[in-house]
């Protein structure tokens, strides 16, 4: 075997290498080549899978690139968070409703003043939303406060930066007490033009106003009338807090030419002439709903038949209606008096000195009609059937001003609905459906003077309060 002998002189021109040594050298070279491949990541991008690696303690991988080498260690990054933020602002409307207390009279105790009329007033306590402009998807929801201000948080999972959106409100009270709907019960949408909302921060969109002096917005005015009725009137009653909810206000439909309320359907339908006469329209109709909700089991058979409004006829006289000084059968006069009174309460506090009630798109004329006035115990023919005098009876139970001897009641407005609740179920005297009779499952009119102020007074006596003085000083009632 020939070996390299370091000591043996080498023959010139000759260098001998043993096969074993050659094999080892080749093996070493091939091994080094393998490490080369590893160190410089020679690879095939089409076939070689990623190689696991670690950077700063985080697991990642190296992927074979197009140049045949593995790239750097790449750690998978979490996706960026979706766009979000808050948006704030104020919403208002041009106030064009009548029934304000005019500056020419004492407005002590009034809750709606001439100084507010035909100004921009807040759209108070309503639900508000943010909608993505591209597809109207809802991305934020909230409410306004009593000054019309709001701050809403929003999230758009489809975006990672600023977004374009619309602000909307839908005519619904923030707590669902009522909602202004279309004439077919659909949802109104009041919207702004598209706005850019900034990601991660608050965007103040300023104040947006619906309606102008030249073109008031009728629906916004209706919403405000309903809001005023709830916030300044009905909300004082625990019974109303418990049961007055989800009212639909259909605007506008002349199916009822002077508006109407349907208790079983929990619906008010407003006529096209109604939006700027709140006391005689939206507030009055909500008063009917409150009467319905106040009654035992939150229901009674509403007096709506034509015959009740046809006094002195006992049958329907086509075209019959009523007004504050028309003589009516007591079942109608009493119910219309209750509904009107509950609306009056939201416009005038108990200490008001010149409270008025009327149907008007401006202010009530002085004396037409002052509900603090009382005609006394001696009245003209059939004045004891006037809804106005029944309204004055309820007012004298509520107000804190005494204007005749013995007028010493000053009760919360809730005592009206609580006393209505005191009427037992049934069709007998003092009961909630006294005007009617049920025969073999049919309901027929039986006592046109049933459910009168006398019945109210007597049920209230049962609960400990005698309002006989107030009733007699407002002409009394022919009911029994």
């Amino acid at each position, binding site marked *: 075997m020939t070996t390299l002998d370091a000591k043996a002189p080498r023959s010139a021109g000759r260098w001998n290498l043993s096969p074993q040594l*050659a094999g080892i050298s080749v093996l070493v070279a091939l091994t*080094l080549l393998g490490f080369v491949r590893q160190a410089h990541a020679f690879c095939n991008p089409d076939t070689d899978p990623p190689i696991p690696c670690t950077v700063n303690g985080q697991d*990642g991988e190296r992927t074979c690139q197009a140049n045949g080498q593995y790239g750097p260690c790449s750690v998978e*990054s979490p996706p960026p968070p979706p766009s979000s933020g808050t948006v704030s602002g104020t919403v208002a409307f041009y106030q064009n409703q009548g029934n304000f207390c005019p500056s020419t009279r004492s407005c002590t105790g009034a809750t709606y003043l001439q100084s507010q009329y035909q100004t921009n007033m*807040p759209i108070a306590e309503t639900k508000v939303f943010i909608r993505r402009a591209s597809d109207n998807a809802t991305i934020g*929801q909230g409410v306004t406060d009593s000054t019309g201000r709001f701050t809403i948080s929003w999230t758009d999972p489809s975006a990672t930066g600023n977004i374009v959106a619309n602000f909307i409100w839908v005519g619904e009270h923030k*707590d*669902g007490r009522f909602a202004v709907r279309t004439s077919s019960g659909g949802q109104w949408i009041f919207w702004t033009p598209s706005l850019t909302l900034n990601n991660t921060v608050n965007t103040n969109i300023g104040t947006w106003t619906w309606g102008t002096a030249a073109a008031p917005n009728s629906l916004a005015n209706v919403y405000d009338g309903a809001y005023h009725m709830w916030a300044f009137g009905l909300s004082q009653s*625990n019974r109303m807090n418990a049961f007055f909810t989800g009212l639909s206000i259909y605007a506008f439909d002349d199916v009822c030419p002077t508006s109407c309320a349907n208790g079983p359907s929990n619906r008010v339908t407003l006529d096209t002439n109604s939006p700027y006469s709140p006391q005689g329209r939206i507030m009055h109709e909500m008063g009917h709903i409150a009467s319905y909700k106040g009654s035992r089991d939150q229901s009674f058979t509403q007096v709506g038949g034509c015959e009740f409004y046809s006094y002195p006829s006992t049958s329907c006289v086509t075209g019959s209606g009523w007004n504050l000084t028309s003589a009516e059968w007591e079942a109608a006069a009493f119910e219309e008096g209750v509904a009107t009174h509950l609306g009056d309460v939201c416009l005038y506090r108990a200490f008001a000195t010149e409270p008025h009630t009327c149907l008007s798109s401006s202010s009530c004329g002085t004396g037409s009609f002052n509900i603090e006035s009382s005609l006394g115990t001696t009245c003209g023919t059939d004045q004891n059937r006037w809804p106005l005098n029944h309204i004055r009876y309820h007012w004298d139970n509520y107000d804190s001003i005494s204007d005749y001897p013995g007028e010493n009641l000053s009760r919360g407005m809730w005592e009206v609905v609580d006393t209505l609740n005191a009427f037992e179920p049934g069709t007998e005297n003092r009961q909630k459906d006294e005007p009617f009779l049920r025969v073999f499952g049919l309901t027929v009119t039986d006592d046109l003077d049933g459910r009168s102020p006398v019945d109210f007074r007597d049920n209230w006596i049962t609960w400990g309060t005698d309002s006989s003085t107030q009733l007699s000083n407002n002409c009394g009632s022919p009911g029994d």
Partner: protein
Amino acid sequence: MRNRRSQTARAVIAGVTLLAIVAGFLAVYCWPRAPRPTSPAGGGTRLAAAHPRSAPSLATPEAAPDDALRGAPDAMVYHPRDTSEWQGMRVNMSMRAFCRGAKSCGLAAACLDGQCGPCTSDGQCGDGERCVLDHCVLASNVHCRSHRDCSADGALCVLSGYSSDPRGNADMRADCLVPRGGKGLPDDLPLTVGIPAPAPEVNSGALMDSVRRAAGNAEQAGVAH
């Protein structure tokens, strides 16, 4: 025994071996390397952040035009609730905002699969909140969850209403309410002061026309003066 390999073969083998060794040395130590990116502290490479553009200046607030009103016959669907419970503030299921995180919803709603909606358990609400009548209420403000928690006499467990904070529940309470009696308005109830609205624009041409017509009408001469 003499080695039968030729001198040429030996030379070739030796040359190849030597070449392989040299090549391997060069590849390992001298081959150009791909540049390594600098890894930021705490992680590897990350996607470039989307830098927001400067927000445009806010448009001058203006009234939404009347034609912005739409009567949409949308069907409003409200989440049902046991009829023995208070029926107020039922959740509108047809308008539900997107959300991310337990407390990201307004109207005191729970964030359920990325959408705001009615809660059914405390676990669906945020820390410190409890589920009452489909809403997430601050635990300190919960005094009942059902009419069964209230006394007899027809009392209901009711919610006091949404508050105007982004979550909608900062002031919300769940209390038993006997449906009788009430509470009057505060004596010092403040009334909102209206903001004067801009006067309607005057069409000067139409105004002059009306003045000219009045000047020619004897009955309206007083008006012209």
